[in-house]
């Protein structure tokens, strides 16, 4: 159902906008309809170019040249139901006004579907306006919506950052994977990957995980391999973990068993325990292979 506005609005061709792009350290790429790599720590850097006939738009909206207008971008997140302003620029009374929309959108308030609404807004009218023209500041004279899905339905790995100086871990370490021992408890509450805020290389790589540089990719690969290694170590050193037991869905026991089965589908837990004990170097190489350490994407 189209919305009926109680004031004059110009035809849609007074504004022409290009497609949205996502800026990454390696350049710009088209903004896709789904961003499966997005999470709450991701800051989206977005861009689109546009051209606005500021004079024609005023005339066809019944507004005088002296009316103050803006081009702005508003975001709306479906799961938090929050909205906010991402970007804004004044629109001069000239046709063919070229503008580059550029902004960064932190992930804190986002989630679910993200709508990006590009609008031309009346900020202040001026004497000489048509009686049918918009008068209320904020009136939307033109708008365009783009909707995208931000996250995959997969559960995110529990990650937190901390200064290791304040924790009982080595101050220079890059990360620490905490795993509890209650196999029946929820895995999401039993596992926590702590990243050391003092470790600039790792922090940079994790913050850029949605659009990593080549160097970041290597760091993230090392991190993935080590997380898998620590999870497997835990699985193999917990004597109570048994691959014939049905652990509750989402429990630590179920997750540890899954990691072992996905990494080494041909091995039983007992065989893995034996190899880790008798040939630790070979076992370590197997983990590198299973986690594809430093393999090109």
């Amino acid at each position, binding site marked *: 159902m189209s919305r009926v506005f*109680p004031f004059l609005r110009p035809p849609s061709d007074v504004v022409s906008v290009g497609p949205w792009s996502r800026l990454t350290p390696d350049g710009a790429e088209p903004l896709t309809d789904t961003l499966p790599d997005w999470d709450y720590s991701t800051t989206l850097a977005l861009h689109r170019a546009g051209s606005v006939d500021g004079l024609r738009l005023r005339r066809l909206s019944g507004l005088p040249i002296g009316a103050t207008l803006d081009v702005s971008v508003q975001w709306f997140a479906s799961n938090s139901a929050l909205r906010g302003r991402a970007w804004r620029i004044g629109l001069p009374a000239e046709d063919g006004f070229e503008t580059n929309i550029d902004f960064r959108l932190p992930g804190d308030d986002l989630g*679910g579907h993200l709508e990006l609404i590009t609008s031309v807004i009346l900020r202040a009218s001026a004497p000489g306006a048509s009686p049918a023209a918009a008068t209320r500041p904020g009136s939307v004279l033109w708008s365009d919506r783009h909707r995208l899905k931000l996250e995959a339905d997969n559960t995110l790995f529990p990650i937190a950052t901390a200064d290791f100086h304040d924790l009982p871990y080595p101050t220079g370490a890059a990360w620490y994977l905490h795993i509890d021992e209650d196999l029946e408890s929820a895995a999401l509450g039993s596992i926590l990957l702590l990243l050391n805020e003092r470790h600039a290389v790792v922090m940079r790589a994790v913050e850029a995980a949605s659009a990593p540089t080549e160097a970041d990719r290597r760091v993230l690969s090392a991190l993935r391999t080590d997380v898998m290694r620590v999870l497997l170590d835990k699985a193999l050193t917990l004597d109570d973990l048994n691959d014939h037991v049905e652990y509750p869905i989402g429990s630590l026991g179920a997750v540890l068993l899954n990691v072992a089965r996905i990494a080494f589908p041909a091995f039983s837990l007992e065989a893995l325990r034996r190899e880790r004990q008798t040939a630790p170097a070979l076992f370590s190489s197997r983990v590198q292979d299973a986690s594809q350490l430093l393999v090109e994407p």
Partner: protein
Amino acid sequence: MFDLEIAQLLHQRCGLVAGEAAVRSIWAFIALVLLPDVSYWRYPRPPGDRVLGTDITRHVWGRLWWRAHLLALPQRFEPYRLLDTFGEAAFDQIFARRRSIGGSRVLIRTLADIWPSIDRSGAPERDVLVDVLKRLSRWGAVVDFEALDQNELRRQVQDAADEAVAVLRAQSQIAGPRHADA
């Protein structure tokens, strides 16, 4: 007072972002697994939505986090000074309109900021608030509040309040003689 202090504490210390705080099962976990004793002390024999998280606007803890999140000011000094502007029932009116105006933090903060200075001319606070929210929701269909600066936004909210008070006063004058006749 308890609710206001807890709202601030939850918002400052839980480490949740809004996307996570919108997940209802998180609040069910906090109410029923982490703090069942406090939840049932706060609401003895609570209806399900107070603890299960079926409706965050009613949840014993979830609604407090959201109250703090919507009203917290982006400043270091007294960021939570607007928390006590509205009573629980009044804030429920705002939060229940999450999809229309309740999602606009700048609008909610502005409303809370000028609310104490609005001259209601004797009209009941709740009636004025409901009428103001209806007006802002209606304007919000064709107006982008987020595009406005603070002063412009204050004027819009003040306009809505002035109109609401005028209408309510007129209604009470019409209703008065009828009641007298009865």
